[in-house]
């Protein structure tokens, strides 16, 4: 593969995934679908960061005799933290979905709005 194209390819696919998640989030009325979209968006940001931390010919950042070049460990630490924070927000969002389903009997945004309008 053309090296110039390959240099940008991981970033572009990460952005494509980001936009797929974004579109799911704003275009679908189903609450669970929206949570899935949010998670796709989130994972694409992880891919972008890990991609930026990669060093050509480097090893995983674990000390090993005879290896001098390691990938950058800082993005890894940052993304480990955000994976865990991400699952916390997902759990809270899904808890809200269950609660909304209980109160309105639906997880479709338009039906919930219609019930609200009826009072």
């Amino acid at each position, binding site marked *: 593969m053309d090296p110039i194209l390959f*240099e*940008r*390819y991981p970033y572009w696919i990460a952005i494509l995934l980001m936009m*797929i998640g974004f579109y799911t989030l704003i275009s679908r009325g189903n609450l669970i679908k929206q949570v899935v979209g949010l998670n796709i968006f989130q994972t694409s940001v992880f891919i972008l960061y890990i991609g930026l931390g990669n060093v050509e010919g480097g090893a995983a950042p674990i000390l090993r005799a005879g290896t001098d070049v390691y990938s950058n460990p800082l*993005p890894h*630490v940052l993304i*480990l933290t955000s994976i865990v924070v991400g*699952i916390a927000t997902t759990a809270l969002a*899904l*808890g809200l979905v269950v609660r909304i389903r209980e109160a309105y009997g639906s997880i479709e945004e338009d039906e919930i709005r219609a019930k609200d309008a009826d009072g």
Partner: protein
Amino acid sequence: MIEHLLVVVLLAFLAATAIAVIRLSNLYAAVMLFGIYSLLSASLFLVMDAPDVAFTEAAVGAGIATVLMLTTLSLASDRENEKPLRRGQPLKLVVVAVTGLALAWGTLDLPGYGDPDAPAHSHVAPRYIEDSPRAIGIDNMVTSILASYRGFDTLGEVAVIFTAGLGVMLLLGRTISSGSRSKSGGRKHGGSKSGD
């Protein structure tokens, strides 16, 4: 070279899976495909030399998130309405396309993938790579940064998980105590806390 090939193939798989997730109206299928998406991204992290991130993503993203979503589905309906196209779809597509193109334009100024001379690799990172195994005494640099240099950050993370767990319990606590349906996200989430 084989590493580049793997990155290209895995990214293509990820894109295909994400498009399938958004198009499916059967929510069970969408959630299971999302689990596959997470597992694919975990494989990609492994190829990109981030094993710690890979196994956390495999356990948390593909494991716990999928279980939580399936639990929610068992409490709610499993099908999306077949009339998904609401007003203003073209406008939304335009917004998404413009945002995506702006971001892609921004990547032209980024250092290339795997560039060893990128600024991110030449200032702070070398210090951690050279000093942390000696100063902390752990061979895995990610672990020593996470638990030692940035220990307070990790403590803050615990506070975030605690708050989220508290929120889920407050939201669903009434459901559990009234015993209408005992399966709840709250208890599942409690399990995830001890796992991390």
